[in-house]
Every structure is written in C-alpha cells, then in structure tokens.
C-alpha cells in the first residue's frame, strides 16, 4: 500500500502563502530532499527576507533568519563553523539577485559547500508586487506600471547562466514547477544539490522558475501558463554547470 505522507522535514505549521503560489511545492521538494538524503538531524536552513521569510517555521530542521540578501554569507559562516552539517539557503529573486547578488556570486566563486534554492517568480511578492531583477521586459508591476522599460530599468538578470560562467561553483541548474513533469525533474535536481554538499563537492544552486498569481494578477492556472509561455523562453531550463560530471567526461 502506498500512503501519501507529509515529509518529516516539514513542520505542522500552516503555510501563509497565497492560494496557487508555488512556494508550497518547492518547500515540499526541499523537505523531500532532506528526508531522502537522511540529513534531517544535521540540516540547518537559512531563510531570506521576502515571501519565504517565515520558512523557519515550516522546515523542521534548525533554522536561521538572515537579513535581506545575506543568506549565502550567513550560510558560509554556518558551514565554516560546522563542516559536518548540511547548510541550505532558500531565497527569492529580489533577495538573491538584487540586494544579495554580491553574496551570491562570491559564495559561488569560493565554491562554498552549501546548497542554494533560488525561487525566481519575477516579482517582489511580500511587499506587494514590485519590479524584480528578474522581471521580464515589458512586465507590468507596481513599480513598472507601464511595463518594464529596458531603456530605463535595464534588463533582467539570468542568474544561472551568469554563475555558470564562474570557475568556482560545482552545480548550477534551472528547473520549473509549473507542471507534473517539471516538478518531478525539479525534485531530482534539488536532491542532487543536497547530495553534492553531502559528498563535499561544493556550491550547488537550483533556480526554480515559479509563479506569483497574486501579484501577476492572474488565476493560478493562468499563472502557470504564463510560466510556460513567457518565463521559460527567457529562462531556459537545464543544467548549466555540473563540474564533477564535466570532469568525469574528460
């Protein structure tokens, strides 16, 4: 008999996320990866500032709440202090790719042995839908009410491609959670990002293309279509760097 169970690494706390938000799926995938790799007792997560700010209430492992964008630096401190523990961050696009870009790039360049879950939904959700570093050209947000004008606001940042250009990081991949096939693949990739750390391979980042029905002003179903039609063409899915695999292939 197959019983559908809640992952051990999620608490019983009720999630505060909006209806149709994909954070819930991503939380579950992270928790499943922690369960599957058996590191529940030595995992320490770092929560961001953003929609996932209260992730510390949802993950059952020890948690630290970081300042906006600083999670990779906090995780660096945790990992250097406790090399045997499994340290992950869970961050959004404003947190990781705007205010925390410096911390992200340098943690990657150092090949810091941590796991980074990067949720890209192309908007600042928590503060009510402002333009994010990953908002698409033309995307209407509260702070780009006429659509993101690249002449004024510049272009979105493709984080995975950018980080993959560095020599440092072990593993960089982009996944999505807009349909069953993509969720199954995301699960596999997120688990690999944890396994990499357990094996001491180094910095592993998984960018998860996500949706924000509330601030995109769409129904949840429509938002998932928008992910497929607009987001994924701009942010193609795939493994952008896998140093160990590349070396093995040589």
């Amino acid at each position, binding site marked *: 008999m197959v019983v559908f169970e809640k992952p051990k690494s999620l*608490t019983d706390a009720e999630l505060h996320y909006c209806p149709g938000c994909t954070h819930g799926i991503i939380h579950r995938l992270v928790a499943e990866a922690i369960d599957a790799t058996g590191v*529940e*007792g*030595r*995992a*320490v997560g*770092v929560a961001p500032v953003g929609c996932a*700010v*209260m992730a*510390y*209430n949802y*993950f*059952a*492992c*020890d*948690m*630290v*709440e*970081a*300042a906006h964008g*600083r999670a990779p*630096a*906090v*995780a*660096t*401190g*945790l*990992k*250097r*202090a*406790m090399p045997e*523990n499994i340290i992950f961050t869970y961050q959004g696009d404003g947190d990781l790719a705007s205010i925390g870009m*410096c*911390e992200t*790039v*340098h943690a990657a360049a150092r090949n810091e042995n941590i796991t980074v879950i990067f949720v890209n939904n192309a908007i600042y959700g928590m503060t009510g839908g402002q333009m994010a570093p990953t908002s698409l050209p033309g995307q209407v947000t509260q702070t780009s009410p006429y659509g993101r004008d690249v002449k004024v606001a510049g272009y979105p940042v493709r984080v995975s491609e950018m980080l993959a250009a560095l020599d440092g990081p072990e593993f960089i991949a982009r996944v999505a959670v807009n349909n069953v096939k993509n969720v199954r693949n995301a699960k596999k990739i997120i688990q690999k990002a944890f396994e990499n750390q357990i094996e001491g391979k180094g910095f592993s980042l998984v960018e998860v293309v996500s949706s924000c029905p509330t601030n995109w002003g769409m129904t949840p179903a429509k938002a998932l279509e928008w992910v497929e039609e607009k987001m994924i063409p701009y942010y193609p899915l795939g493994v952008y760097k896998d140093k160990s695999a590349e070396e093995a292939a040589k």
Partner: protein
Amino acid sequence: MSEKVLMKGNEAIAEAAIRAGCRHYFGYPITPQTELAAYMAKQMPKIDGVFLQAESEISAINMVYGVASAGKRVMTSSSSPGVSLKQEGISYIAGSDLPALIVNVERGGPGLGGIQPSQADYFQATKGGGHGDYHLIVLTPASVQEMADLTALAFDLADKYRMPAMLLADGTIGQMMEPVELPAESGCTVEKPWAVTGTKMAREHNIVNSLYLVPEELEKTNFERFERYKAIEENEVRYEEFMMDDAEVCVVAFGIAARVSKNAVVAARKEGIKAGLIRPITVWPFPKKAVAKAAAQVKGFVSVELSMGQMIEDVKLACDCRVPVSLCNRAGGMIPSPDEVLAAIKNMQGGNA
C-alpha cells in the same frame, strides 16, 4: 604566563582572541586595522581555525552572524567606514541575541575621512549604531596590554549576556608597539542550548531570528533585552580613577585621549592644580555613578576627545549638569597635546569653562 612580548596593538587583539578560543575570523581589508587580519590569516590555518577574507564588510558581519548562530566564538575587525557597513548585521546579531566580537580601530570621518586615529564613532558604538533599540558592550583599550585583556573580557561578556561586544580602539593604540603579557588560554564556559547545531532528531528545531510580526511579542523581546542591559549597567561598569581623591577638576577621557590626559593631570598637579582623571574602560555601560560621585566634589569636568564632542553628552547626563562640563578636542585624525589638555584644566580651575 608572565613573559612579556613586544607587539603591535592590532596583533595583540588577534593573539588574545585566539587564546580566548576564537577560531573563526572574517574581515575585509581596511587601514588602520590591517595587522589584525594579517595575523589571523597567518595563524588560523596553523590551529585548524578559519580565516576568511569576505567580499565586503556586509558579508563579513553576516558570516559572523552564521558562526555565532552555531554557538562558536567569532570575531570581525574593521575601521570606521567599514564598521558603518557592518551596522545592519550588528543590529541583526543584537536582535537575535547572539554573542560576537566586533573590533573597530577607529579613524577620522565622516565619509571616507582619513586614516589617522579618531574617537568619532563613539555615538555609533554606544547609542546603537544600527536600527532598533539595542546596545553593545563597548570596551575601550588605552594600551596594548588592554587590547589583549579587553579582547578576552569582551568574549566572556558577550557569551555571558548573549549579545555582541565591541572593542572600540583607535589607530594609535592599534599601531603602537608595547610590551604585553598575553592572557592565558581560555574559552567559552557558557552552555548554548539555543545554537543551531542540527536537531540530531533529539529536540525541537532551534530558530535564530529577530522577526516578530506581532507587536506585543516584539515589544516583549525589547523589554526583556533591556532588563538584561540593566543588569550589565549594574555589574559590568569598568573605569580607572587617577588622582581623583582630592580633585577639583575632573578630566574624563578614554583610549589614547586618556593617556594624553594623564600626562596633563600630572603636569597640572605640578603647578598646584588639583586635577584628576576618570578613564571609562566601558563606555557602554558608561561609568555614570563615578561621574555623578565626582560631580559632588569638583568644580567641573573636562571631556577630552578625538571627536567634535560625543562622550561629553554622557558626562553631562551623568553629572546632571550640576557643574560645568567643557570640551577639549581635536578631530580628523589629530590628537590633543598634553599642553592643550592642561590649558583646558586651567580654564576650568579658573572658572572660565
């Protein structure tokens, strides 16, 4: 250990930190604290410690936050402009009730300022510095010996009260060489059941956090924190009194300004002026009672500072403005001479404050 070694102030801090069991150091290059980071870079790898040059002061203090969350002794050092950058992280460390040591080897400001010694970060260090209601325990060394001794003490106090401590030094003490008797090896003696070391599936998860969205809860954490601060103000005030028994003019000065002032007090005594010195060693908590007691006896106070006059506000508050308080100061990297301090003492003695 009683053997004395000749060391720079910055190096004495580093060695004392290592002897206090600190095995994690994060920093970013800045003058005039350079020797401290260099010492750590050399020593830490030899003792299985961590030296990491961070990508910014902001990252360095957040790495400190990470190690402190894990319950281990940790420090960072910088100088004034760099310490400004750390303020966000310091506020989070204070708000999350974590022990850590931040060293500020001050230089002149504001802005990029200069690289010569200063005490112009007094407000920043003693009144909070970052956002929100909080304090740091702030210790002010006046010699290379105190650079070492107060480093060890700062780690102990930070652990004891679960809060960040700051060593507020200046470029002069950082750069000068003096014989120093290094403190004995020590370490943290306080249990840290709150540390995020992994649940080992044996307890509820620990959360290191400063977010409280319910205002009643946030208020409660503020009040509880200030109860602890009250205990610190009762128990941890440290200061030195010099020739205060019969003093009629009281100089108040810390750090390098106190050393200059001591010479001026001796010179004043030679001229028959009954001068004395109160040297705060902790500037938070400030030696309020000592200043208040002196106020009953002296004609006035002279606050000697390497700033435009910051500590003078605490002197005035502590003596309740019952007697005049004058300022003898230099700024921008300049240090008052003993003659300048002597002139200020004479002015106060003559009632020309």
